[in-house]
């Protein structure tokens, strides 16, 4: 290897992420940016709220959709039943889950944005 030039060394070490969050920092975010105790508490509170929401949503979906195989094992009679001429498990897995997924996604986005709005208000006031 020849000794790398200075400009080459930049490509090796940069991960093209640094330039992406540029901007001037407002007074509301200064506590957070300067890593003060108040700032850290604020960040932790938001992370906790968002994590709680994410876990709640994932567990709910995990039970409602991930529980279906167990439902089919526990209630084998379901396959014999039909809805509009289609066996019930096919209706559930082939059709019904999809509107449920979209609805869940929509509700999550609303809740997550509300968490952020509450947080932004808190920061502006402090």
């Amino acid at each position, binding site marked *: 290897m020849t000794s790398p030039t200075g400009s080459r060394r930049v490509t090796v070490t940069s991960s093209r992420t640094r330039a992406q969050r540029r901007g001037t920092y407002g007074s509301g975010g200064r506590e957070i940016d300067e890593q003060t105790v108040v700032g850290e508490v604020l960040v932790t509170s938001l992370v906790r709220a968002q*994590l709680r929401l994410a876990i709640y949503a994932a567990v709910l979906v995990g039970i409602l959709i991930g529980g279906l195989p167990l439902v089919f094992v526990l209630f084998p009679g379901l396959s014999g039943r039909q809805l509009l001429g289609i066996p019930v498990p*096919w209706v559930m897995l082939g059709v019904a889950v999809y509107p449920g997924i979209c609805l869940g*996604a929509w509700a999550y986005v609303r809740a997550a944005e509300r968490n952020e709005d509450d947080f932004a208000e808190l920061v502006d006031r402090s």
Partner: protein
Amino acid sequence: MTTSADLAAVALVTVATIGVGAYGVRVSRTTSDFYVAARSVTPFWNASAIGGEYLSAASFLGIAGLILAYGADMLWYPVGYTVGYLFLLFLVAAPLRRSGAYTLPDFAESRLDSRVVRKTASVLVVVIGWLYLMPQMQGAGLTLHTATGAPSWVGGALVGVVVLVIVAAGGMRSITFVQAFQYWLKVTALMVPAIFMVMAWHAHGAPSPGQTAVPVLAQDITVRVTSDLTVDVLYPTLVGVRGTVDGRRDDGPLVLAVGSHTLTTGTDLFLRKGSAVPQAVGQSTQHNMDWVRPLASTTSHDHPLYAIYSLVLATFLGTMGLPHVLVRFYTNPDGRAARRTTLLVLILLSGFYLLPTIYGALARVYAPDLLVTGQTDSAVLLLPGRLVGGIPGELLSALVTAGAFAAFLSTSSGLTVSIAGVIAQDVLPAMRGVRAFRIATVLAVGAPLVLSLFATRLPVADAVGLAFAVAASSFCPMLLLGIWWRGLTAAGATAGLVTGGGLAVAAVVVTVATNARTGWVGSLLAEPAAWSVPLAFTVMIAVSRATAASRPPGVNRVFARMHLPERVLVRPPERAPERA
């Protein structure tokens, strides 16, 4: 055959793809344009592009083929692919966008401040990407073979060359337009024929797959045996033979007795309308009663409940770790837009995934002859011609073929951009800029193309499922712990990536090489996610605890950046595209 219409369709998609791509070339001039479309893509187009990229050969061809063969349990594939995006939305979408990472290795390095973890992640990106690209090339080969009889390597090579041209010439900007265009092409290509097919099915008196005990032919058909195989015959069946059955040459009518029979390569089997279909051993659920019921089939896996939960885990958690998914999030202006785009993506995916089920169920009635050889991936391509006759049937066939090609092209180009990006940054550090990216592109496409020529023929949806399993066992724990737990260390992440990813890859290699799926060992190896995902999490947490002293010092700053809404930290919000 409908060769000319199909060929015209493939040509049209290819030319249109290059055309739309070329339109993008004129606007992409700098390195920044090249990689991230200058982040000026609207949510609707971005969501369409994500949908276009995500719906691969597995979704377009594979799911319907698996449903034809195995029935109810295979409905978990589309459900899993969709819920995977839902979990991505819940757990990583906004923080990942806010992290500013462009690739998974970028995320690993910026979160954990370590070059080692970056290199490990880079290797895994390339492995998962190749694992995912290979079935796309196989699918392309199959499609072109079904349409024109061309040797299977031709389709893969065609896709490889087109992707190479688009990606190397235009980068991501053109890719975004190409992908968005191809989402809508794919939906149209499945939806329009499906409408005509359901109408034709009604006109036939709506025959249900469950009304005969085993799949029965809806028309006279000739099956050509392309590799030696063993079939199970469930009822004595009168067939016409030209070739070798059970080691004896035959040319004329023959009654196949109940039991196993071997068919030699090159044999033609003439099957009469109304006769039960001889089925390749172990490649399908033989009785329609088991086909309709969930968890009733034991032919696909010895332990169906384990297999389903493993698949559920792999798809639910694997999506977020796919290398081509993260890049797309980068084109959102901020975290909020990333969430809203994901919501839009889920709606688009949900609409699409209603369709393969219709094809799979209709194929059980109208294309059960594919069960003779077990090569059911071509069901989607054959069905429109079987149900709708004459010129309209040919046109619908051509439309499906076009959609299939769109699927290979879009997924392959998206994956290629991602793999090439990683190769250019981490494998070819001596070169810079656009030239490195172009050379990386050749590597990214070439390797899986060569692999697809030699690899055993797995069903495409199965092969893609393995890529999900590897992603779920490596990047999923790294992302979840990295985003939500300050305690993750570089050593912990590396150990988890190596253990989880390494073992999942090993399981994949053993499964592909031996094709053994029986017994508990076979099941555990064929569907590794159920044990490899928890293992990866455990290793990451345990090693991170043990190396807690080496937590990266900037973790609080990274956390603030990932989780805080942009308007709190950055004012005014950046709008103008970056110029490198």
